[in-house]
């Protein structure tokens, strides 16, 4: 009847070292990071690394960790490198057990530097997301942490978003939001501008505001001095 009930999947998840939570500077630094890329961190899953964190042993401590991270819109979902006792306590707090990572590079001690989420991706570093089928009305595509490339039309009523650049090698008729995580240098490129809405890092123009002479053309859209500019390609 129904297909498999449980399927395997691979996810990239941020890792925060448990020791950092005791560092007074941690929350301040974290708040700064989140503010710079709010969409990226919103409800993002986090795993707590318990390596060298023998003092983390009680269920309430894990609950507190959850709350601290939740204050910054992060979602603590599990622990890693835990002892059996810690696993138990974590489970009581509703946290899952994740396999330990492979060998890791040496990391800065808690008193130094800012917290470094393991999964730090500049848009250029991660592989661009490629969509080759038409993006139909009512569909949303979000290329998290990277560029989005679409080689088929984007219908009216469809929404395409990327933390990086957006390239549409066809007609763009829906909504396109580049630099969704706040990157003001992101750009939108398309073969045929017929968009309902275009946006870079939160600044936007609706269809009505797009000059008539630029509609239907191949253009490049960038944020210059905080204003969206549209240039022929």
């Amino acid at each position, binding site marked *: 009847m129904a297909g498999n009930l449980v399927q395997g999947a691979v996810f990239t998840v941020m890792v925060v070292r448990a020791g950092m939570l005791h560092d007074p500077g941690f929350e301040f630094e974290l708040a700064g990071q989140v503010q710079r890329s709010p969409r990226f961190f919103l409800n993002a899953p986090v795993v707590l690394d318990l390596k060298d964190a023998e003092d983390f042993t009680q269920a309430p401590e894990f609950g507190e960790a959850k709350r601290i991270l939740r204050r910054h819109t992060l979602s603590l979902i599990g622990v890693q490198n835990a002892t059996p006792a810690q696993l138990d306590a974590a489970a009581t707090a509703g946290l899952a057990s994740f396999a330990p990572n492979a060998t890791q590079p040496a990391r800065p001690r808690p008193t130094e530097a800012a917290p470094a989420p393991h999964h730090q991706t500049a848009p250029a570093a991660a592989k661009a997301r490629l969509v080759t089928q038409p993006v139909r009305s009512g*569909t949303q595509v979000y290329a998290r942490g990277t560029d989005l490339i679409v080689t088929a039309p984007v219908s009216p009523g469809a929404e395409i978003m990327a933390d990086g650049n957006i390239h549409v090698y066809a007609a763009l008729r829906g909504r396109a939001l580049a630099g969704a995580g706040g990157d003001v240098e992101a750009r939108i490129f398309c073969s045929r501008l017929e968009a309902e809405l275009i946006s870079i890092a939160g600044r936007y123009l609706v269809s009505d505001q797009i000059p008539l002479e630029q509609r239907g053309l191949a253009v490049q859209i960038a944020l210059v001095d905080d204003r969206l500019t549209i240039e022929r390609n």
Partner: protein
Amino acid sequence: MGSHGEKRGNLLAKVIVLTSGKGGVGKTTSAAAIAAGLALRGKRTVVIDFDVGLRNLDLVMGCERRVVFDFINVINGDAKLNQALIKDKRNDNLYIFPTSQTRDKDALKRDGVERVLEELKEDFDYIVCDSPAGIEHGAITALYFADSAIIVTNPEVSSVRDSDRIIGILASKSRRAEHNLEPVDAHLLLTRYSLERVKKGEMLSVEDVKEILSIPLLGVIPESESVLRASNTGTPVAFDEESPAGRAYLDAVARFVGEQREMRFVQPERRSIFRALFGRA
């Protein structure tokens, strides 16, 4: 299923859904006409009404006075398939499977629908599913098991927008999509087309619609009074040989099974010399 004659043999039955998103564009008319067209070609065809609670297929097929048991009865096990299927009086290859008027779409249980379709596949070449409008449970259930989809669209902006939406849903919520099988093959059927209105700029052209929807064109059905006549007399318009719409449906069916046919009603019809002489519009 002895009462329906011999078993069909090894040919794979095909499930076709007529869907649109938008209401009132001609799904039921087209489902009836296409099923009739397939039957006229010797294919054993059953047309099923998925519009529980708002059933129309039985009216359009002219069998509303012969409905005893329906799709929901069979899903619930209250009746057997052969008690609910109605044979068309005009063509031995054509059967109608009406739905309930008193229940609603929640009565469509997916595993029940699957079971019924599997049973129908033993006896029929084509299973034509007439979907309700919308994108909720009824419409999704109608398209879930489809092998092919005919997207019924009027040359008008809202209809095109809704058709685009339903194509997207087919690509993500059908059984083939969920199980990563070969995708449902979608075809565009443009209905209520008027060349005069396109020329006046009041209606989207075939090319406009094709460009926005990006799916292959199966046929263009011209606006025609014969369609209303067909509904009111309970005769699928494909059985009306005089009707331009009927002929267009037969062309569409021919293309569906792989024949080449030119699109008739898209070029201006050649006016006969007599009409020109007598100045008739």
